[in-house]
C-alpha cells in the first residue's frame, strides 16, 4: 500500500514538473503565434484585436495558473490557430494515433516476446548471431526512411495499402488496416529489434540465477523451467521495457504520421509547434506525457502484482 501511495505521489510530482517545464519552454520560445497565423498579410488592427481576445496580454504566472487550473478540470483551453477547444481537436485526432499505437504495440508484443524466447533458448548458436545482427540493423535504420522504403516497395505495389491519409474504422475496417499497417510496421520494426533482445537478455539473465538450478534439481523439465519460472521472473524486467515502449511508440507515431500523412496527434503537434499555437501544443504535450507517465505508473503497479518482494514489502 505504501508502495502504491508513493507511486501516486511520484506520479503527481512528475506531472507537475512536466507542466512547469512545458509551460516554461513555450515562454522562452521565440515567435508570435498571431503573427504566424496571420502571415505577411497581417493587419496590425487584426493582430491587436486577436491578442486581447486570447488573453495573451496577461502576466505569465496568471497565464500559468489559469492553465494548470484548466488542466486539472480537463479544460485545456482553446487553440489559437483553430480557435476551438484543444480537447475537441485532440478528440478528433486521437482515434488515428491510438489505433496506430495499438496496432504497433500488438505487432511488437506478438513478435518480440516469442522471438526473444526462441533466441534465448538457442544462446550462442548461429541463429543467435544472425538475429543479433538483424536486430542491430533494425535499430540502425532511421524510421522515416524505413517508412519511405515501405511506401516505395509495398505501398506503391499493393492496392491494399493506403499510403497517405486515414480511413476511419467506422467507414471500413479493411481500409483502416490498409492505412495503418505500413506506418505501424515502420514504428514496430526497430522496436521489435530492440525489444526482442531485451526479452532474450532478461531470460538469459534469469537462467543464470541460482533458483533455476534449484528447480532443475527438483527434476522439473526444461519446458516448465522456462515457461513457468523463468518467464514469470523475466516478466518483471520485460515489463519495464514494455512500459517504456509507450513513450517510444508515441514518439514513433509523431514522425511516421508525417511520412504517411496520417492526421494524428503527432502531425497536429508538429504543425502547432511551428505555428506556436501554445495552448494546443501544451495540451498535446501534457496529454502525451500524461499517457506515458500513466502507463509507467500502471507498470509500476503491475510490478507489485508480479513481484511479491514489492507487493509484500
Amino acid at each position, binding site marked *: 500500500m505504501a508502495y502504491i501511495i508513493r507511486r501516486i505521489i511520484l506520479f503527481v510530482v512528475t506531472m507537475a514538473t512536466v507542466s512547469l517545464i512545458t509551460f516554461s519552454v513555450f515562454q522562452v520560445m521565440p*515567435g508570435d503565434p498571431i503573427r504566424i497565423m*496571420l502571415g505577411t498579410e497581417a*493587419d496590425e*488592427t487584426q493582430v491587436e484585436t486577436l491578442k486581447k481576445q486570447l488573453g495573451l496580454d496577461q502576466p505569465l504566472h496568471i497565464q500559468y495558473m489559469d492553465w494548470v487550473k484548466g488542466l486539472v478540470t480537463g479544460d485545456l483551453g482553446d487553440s489559437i490557430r483553430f480557435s476551438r477547444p484543444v480537447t475537441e481537436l485532440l478528440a478528433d485526432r486521437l482515434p488515428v494515433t491510438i489505433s496506430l499505437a495499438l496496432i504497433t504495440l500488438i505487432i511488437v508484443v506478438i513478435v518480440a516476446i516469442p522471438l526473444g524466447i526462441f533466441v534465448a533458448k538457442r544462446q550462442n548458436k548461429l541463429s543467435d548471431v544472425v538475429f543479433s545482427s538483424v536486430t542491430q540493423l533494425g535499430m540502425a535504420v532511421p524510421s522515416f526512411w524505413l517508412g519511405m522504403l515501405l511506401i516505395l516497395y509495398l505501398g*506503391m505495389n499493393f492496392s491494399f495499402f493506403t499510403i*497517405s491519409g486515414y480511413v476511419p474504422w467506422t467507414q471500413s475496417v479493411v481500409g483502416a488496416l490498409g492505412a495503418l499497417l505500413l506506418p505501424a510496421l515502420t514504428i514496430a520494426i526497430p522496436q521489435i529489434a530492440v525489444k526482442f533482445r531485451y526479452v532474450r537478455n532478461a531470460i538469459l539473465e534469469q537462467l543464470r540465477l541460482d533458483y533455476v538450478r534449484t528447480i532443475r534439481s527438483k527434476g522439473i523439465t526444461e519446458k516448465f523451467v522456462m515457461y513457468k519460472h523463468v518467464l514469470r521472473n523475466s516478466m518483471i524486467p520485460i515489463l519495464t521495457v514494455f512500459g517504456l515502449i509507450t513513450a517510444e511508440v508515441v514518439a514513433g507515431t509523431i514522425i511516421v504520421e508525417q511520412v504517411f500523412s496520417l492526421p494524428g496527434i503527432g502531425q497536429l503537434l508538429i504543425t502547432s509547434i511551428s505555428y506556436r499555437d501554445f495552448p494546443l501544443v501544451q495540451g498535446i504535450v501534457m496529454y502525451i506525457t500524461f499517457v506515458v507517465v500513466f502507463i509507467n505508473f500502471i507498470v509500476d503497479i503491475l510490478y507489485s502484482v508480479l513481484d511479491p518482494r514489492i507487493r509484500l514489502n
Partner: protein
Amino acid sequence: SEGGNVDGEKAQEIKVRINDDPDFLDPHLATASISYQMILNMFEGLFAPETDGSLSPAIAESYELSEDGLTYTFNIRDNVKFHNGNTVKVEDITYTFDRLMGTKNGDPLSSNFNNVASIEAPDTDTFVIKLKEPNSNFLYSLTALQSAIIPASNEGKHNDNPIGTGPFKFVKYSPGANLELAKHEDYWDEKLPYLDKVTFVFQSDDQSALMALKAKEVDLTGVPANRLAEVENDFNIRKQNNNSTLVVTFNQEREPFKDVRVRQAINYAINKGDIIDAVFSGYATPIGSNMSPAMGDYYKDGLQDVYARNIEKAKELLAEAGYPDGFSTKISVSSHNDMYSNIAQVIVENLREIGIKVEIEVVEWGIWLERIYFGRDYDMTTIDLTGRPSAYEILNDYISTNDSENFFRFKNAEFDKIMADVLKEADRDKQIQMYQRAQEILNEDSASVYIADYQVLWASDKEIEGLKSYPFWFHDMSEVRFTE
C-alpha cells in the same frame, strides 16, 4: 472520389487537396491566402474577381460613380439568398461594412476602409459608400476577399458556422483533416453549381498528396514539378501562373544594399534560370518586377531579361560601389518551405563568383515573420510574395514607402508619386501606363532580385471540367463538374 451513385452516374462530389488548414472561416478575420482558396466558395462580395484580373458584378448588380470619384452607389441584386435561406437585405450589407470598419461595435477588423467617409442605405435596393479621397482601386476591396457579405443574424457565429451567399455552403470543418461544403440549392445563378459536395482535404506534404492522387484518394491537387512526369498521362495537368512574386531581396536601409549598384551587381550575378531549373524543374516564369504575366495588360514585358546573367558587369558594378573584392553577408530564410533554403544555396554559389560571401541562416517561419518581415532585422532574404487580384496592391504592397509592409525598405520618390497618382486616375489605359512605368522603376532600381512567378501544376481527374485559374489562390468550384 468514391464510386458512382446508384444510376451509375458519376457522383458530383470532389475532393480537393489543400496544403493547410484555413486560419479562419470567418471571411473578415481570415488573412491567409490558403483560407480564401477554400472559403471564397462560400462567400461573395458586392463584386467578384475574374480570372483575368478584372471584376464582375456579384451581389451588386450594377453601380454608379459620382463625378468627383467619391460616391459609389450600388444597386443590390434581388433575391440573393444566404445559406440559411434568408434573403440578403441591405441591412446585412450595412452590417457587413460596420463590422469591418468597427463603426458600430468593437474594433475595426480591416484597415481597407479607412478611406471610407460614410455608408448609407437609402432604400432596400440601394447601398451607398462615400470616400474621403478618390481611389481608382477601391472596387477591388469590395470582393469577398476583403468584404464578404455576411448575415447580421449570424453575429457571433461567423467562424464556427459561417454563412454566406456563395455557391457552396458550410457543412463541417475537421481541423487538420478536412473542410466539407455542400451545394447551395438557392444560389442566385440558377445554373450553378454542378457539384453536390466539395471536400477540401488538408495535406501539407506534396509527396503524399501526389500519392493520394494516384490512389484516387483526392481528385485535384498541386503536384511538385519534379514529379510531373509520373502523373502527366493519367491526369489532366493545368499550369497556372501563380501571380506570385518570388524575390531575393535585401534590406535597403543597410550597407551595402543602400547602393543601387550593389543591388544591380547582385541582380546580374544571380542565375534565374538555374533557380527555375533546380527548384521548380523549369516550371516558372521569369519576371523583372513585382508583376507577373498573369496580370495581363498591366504586365510590362521584357523586364525579365534586363539583368541577364553577366558576371563581368556585376563585378564592375561592385567595384564602382567600392567593393572590388566583394563583401560578406547573410541570407536569412524561413524553414517552412524547402524552396527558400534551396534558392539560398544557389544564391550562395552565384554570389561567390563575384566575391560576395553569403552565409545561410535558416529560421522558423514565426521567427522569420517576427525578425525579418516585421522586425526588418536582416541583410538578405528570399520570399514568395503572394499574388493579389489588383495590380495596385501587387505594386504598392511591400514596396511603396506609404505601405507599412515595405520590408525591403525600398525608397523611390517617383515610384511613390506614381502609386499615389494612380489612385486618382479613372482611365484604365492611363492606369496601365502608370503601372508599367512603376514596374520599370522597380527594375531599374533593383528593388530586389525578381526571380520568377512559379507555376502551380494542378493535376486533376480526367473527368473533371470547369476548373478556372485566377491570378490569386482560389479553387473556384462553382463551374466544376464530372463528365462521363
